[in-house]
């Protein structure tokens, strides 16, 4: 199992899920990760180590979905089953299979939810976009663009963050996906326009930071804070009304399914089938909110808590 | 002499890798005397006094101060024991002021609360003392006692170092080539200072390559050669030629000198 980094709980959880499943199935599992997010080189090295150590299969969450492809090819040539988790490779068929949350979908859901919640107000909403990093990794782009799409803002370049010129967008800023960045970014955007009432955040830590900023500006009321991940702390925040809605993903599911698939492949040699209509196996993403709205199905935080990770 | 030597060293050995800088060197300093140490370059003079002043720790041998065996683990301990040294490298902090340098490691604190509890320095007092001492010596015409040492000329710096030693030395003062870089006038000042300190009854160790200077101020001359004390001679009984002959190995020292 090769994850992006050990400094992100999402992947830590994914690792735990995999380990647990591996225990159960008696698969022996070794885990690798980059030191920092976007640490592409280490992932390549990890894949090579797997080849060297004659692994049967690789579960991979790529940091650089394009650049990793040649390495993956090497592995598949060496007869290893490569399953992309969480983030699809580009092109998606470079991996034998992909168990992923549709990050674009994840963004879209919270987008729609926000739009619907505002109702007519959506027309003159003021939106702050709290992204991940200046280097715009693919998760960053997908979630961001998905959100805008869902909110009903027309996208320019689907692969670019920040090229939209819709007046409702107050601005983008980066958070490094952690609380400190989230707070600083929120503060800066509030400085640009204090009337912000919709805040998209790349993940829940960033959302927590943003909330702190809103509080210090005395604006925690009447601002829609939406996020992606569905980690237990995040869902807890939904429950407490700090986060309006979050798109929950299922890293443990991904991981354990991945392990199973590999086991199956190793035993019987048969490949997992992608979910109908998609070119990857969707491990699902669910909107978690306590103020459900028409046309966007969702679960409440209670249920979310039962299914949350970490 | 039947007087007890104030500072003695026996069988000092110091190796640097394969080089033997000190090879079972002995050393004696008697109260109130000026002892000159002469020797070729690399004879081991600096290493000897570094050992005595705690700058390095000899590999073997023992040092006695007032008959007490001492083992200085740092220059600080030697200083606390009353041994002040003017090193060949003056050991001044370029960026600090003259006053700060003079009192480095022995700063004065303000009286009362601020001194005891806030540990506040008594700047004025220190500058006061520094200025006064420097003037006594008359070695420097410093415009500003607060100016950084790095703005002083080589001669002036040497002056500061010498004054520091002369001011705080309570038992022994050691000077390693204090006039090496000095002009005629400045050297003269230092020599006078030595006479002055001596007249206060403090013994002085002077390392120098300048024979006329040595023979002018020294009571006894310790000739160092190849890492050990070759002999000790009395400047009144021997000529400069003798001294140079001994230290360069051109001539064997007289038997009695070796014991002196």
């Amino acid at each position: 199992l090769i994850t992006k980094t050990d400094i992100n709980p999402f992947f830590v959880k994914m690792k735990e899920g995999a380990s647990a499943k591996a225990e159960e199935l008696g698969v022996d599992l070794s885990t690798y990760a980059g030191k920092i997010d976007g640490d592409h080189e280490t992932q390549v090295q990890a894949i090579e180590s797997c080849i060297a150590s004659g692994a049967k299969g690789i579960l991979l969450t790529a940091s650089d979905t394009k650049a990793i492809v040649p390495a993956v090819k090497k592995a598949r040539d060496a007869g290893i089953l490569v399953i992309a988790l969480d983030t699809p490779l580009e092109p998606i068929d470079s991996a034998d299979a992909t168990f992923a949350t549709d990050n674009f979908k994840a963004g879209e859901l919270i987008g729609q939810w926000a739009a619907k919640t505002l109702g007519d107000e959506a027309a003159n909403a003021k939106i702050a976009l709290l992204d991940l990093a200046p280097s715009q990794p693919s998760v960053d782009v997908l979630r961001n663009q998905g959100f805008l799409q869902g909110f009903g803002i027309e996208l320019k370049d689907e692969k670019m963050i920040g090229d939209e010129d819709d007046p409702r967008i107050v601005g983008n800023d980066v958070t490094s996906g952690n609380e400190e960045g989230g707070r600083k970014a929120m503060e800066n955007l509030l400085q640009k326009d204090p009337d912000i009432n919709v805040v998209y955040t790349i993940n829940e830590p960033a959302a927590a930071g943003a909330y702190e900023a809103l509080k210090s500006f005395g604006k925690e009321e009447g601002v829609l804070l939406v996020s992606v991940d569905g980690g237990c702390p995040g869902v807890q925040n939904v429950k407490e009304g700090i986060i309006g809605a979050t798109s929950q993903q299922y890293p443990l599911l991904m991981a354990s399914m991945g392990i199973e698939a590999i086991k199956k492949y190793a035993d019987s040699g048969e490949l997992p089938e992608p979910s109908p209509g998609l070119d990857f196996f969707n491990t699902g993403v669910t909107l978690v909110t306590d103020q459900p709205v028409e046309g966007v199905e969702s679960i409440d935080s209670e249920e979310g808590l039962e299914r949350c990770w970490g | 002499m039947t007087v007890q030597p104030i500072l003695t060293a026996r069988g000092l050995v110091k190796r640097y890798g394969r080089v033997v800088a000190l090879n079972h060197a002995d050393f004696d300093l008697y109260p109130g005397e000026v002892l000159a140490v002469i020797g070729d370059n690399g004879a081991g003079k600096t290493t000897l006094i570094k050992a005595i002043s705690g700058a390095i720790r000899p590999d073997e041998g023992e040092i006695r101060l007032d008959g007490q065996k001492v083992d200085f683990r740092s220059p600080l301990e030697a200083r606390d024991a009353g041994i002040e040294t003017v090193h060949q490298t003056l050991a001044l902090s370029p960026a600090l002021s003259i006053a700060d340098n003079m009192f480095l490691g022995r700063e004065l604190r303000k009286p009362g609360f601020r001194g005891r509890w806030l540990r506040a320095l008594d700047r004025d007092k220190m500058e006061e003392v520094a200025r006064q001492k420097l003037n006594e010596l008359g070695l420097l015409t410093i415009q500003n006692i607060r100016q950084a040492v790095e703005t002083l000329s080589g001669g002036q710096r040497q002056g500061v170092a010498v004054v520091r030693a002369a001011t705080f030395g309570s038992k022994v003062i050691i000077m390693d080539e204090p006039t090496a870089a000095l002009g005629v006038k400045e050297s003269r000042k230092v020599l006078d200072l030595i006479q002055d300190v001596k007249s206060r009854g403090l013994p002085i160790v002077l390392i120098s390559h300048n024979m006329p200077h040595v023979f002018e101020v020294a009571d006894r001359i310790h000739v160092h050669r190849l890492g050990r004390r070759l002999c000790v001679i009395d400047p009144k009984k021997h000529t400069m030629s003798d001294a140079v002959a001994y230290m360069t190995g051109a001539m064997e020292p007289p038997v009695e000198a070796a014991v002196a």
Partner: protein
Amino acid sequence: MSDAGAAPHKQDFEEVLDRSDKSVAAFEGHEKNLMDRLQHFLHGNPTMVPVIVLAISIIAFGFIAGDRFFSAFNLSLIMQQVSIIGILAAAQSLVILTAGIDLSVGANMVLASVIMGNLGVQLGLPAPVAIGIGFICGALAGALNGFLVTKVRLPPFIVTLGTWNIFFALNLWLSGAQSIRSQDIDAQAPLLKFFGESINIGGAQFTFGSMLMVLIFAVLWYVLNRTAWGRHVYAVGDDKDAAELAGIRTSRTLVQVYALAGLVCGIAAWAAIGRVGSVSPQSFQEANLQSITAVVIGGISLFGGRGSIIGPLVGALIVGVFNSGLRLAGVDVLWQVFAIGWLTIIAVAMDQWIRKVSA
């Protein structure tokens, strides 16, 4: 020493000396033009350089980014945003003054905050105890650096490059990369968030964190300039061997400096929890480089022994002003990075230009 002339057999050619005159090398005031004057003034008080840079940049951004930037509130906000990096810069300055460098300050701080969080929230120890232990860990981590630098005689750069990785690993191990939620802290140990509190004065919002930063710099300034220990720190940074020969326990001083720096990191950890609102093991990945940037922009020499501790405070503010100003002016993040790069170089270049004038 009037008796000097009577000294025993001095070389004859020295007799004349007593008549030698006492005047010293000629001086000359040559403020040619205004530029020179300015240069000389600044040379006299180099601390002013960063202050002036700060003033200029505030005014400049006042024009560029408009009064949204210039508001009392925004300026106080900048204070908040730089407070953590500022405190770390204070720790960094101590080390750099001794001609060292500490790449581990950031990791050390995060580690300390994770420890505080685990003890105070997870294990539910009394907050003061948790905080105290956090301080101790910070100080010990610093002392470890100091020990390796002095006893094992390793270059600080290498030591702290190593401990940076070590602390980082420990942090992940202790936290499992999990943040501790703001609300849990409120429930368990609100004291941890003390420095998040703030008071408003005419629109400006001063968090206790920003005040803490200023306080720390004030204390360090006093220690460095008004106590013997402070002078020793400068002496050691200036010329270690000279200081040793002059009778300073350089090793002890160095270990103390690193330990103190570590303690300050521990304090920063507490402030950071208040600032971020939660215990976040993922934050402050780049704090070490940012603190170094603040220090050098503040005019402290990387070669040690020169510079005032106030500089880094101003340096940190400069960086903050730039970030805030550029953002409000709507500049892309990527060009902000670009600008900070040049800022570093130009600020230090100005500083050099000032110091070029000698004595």
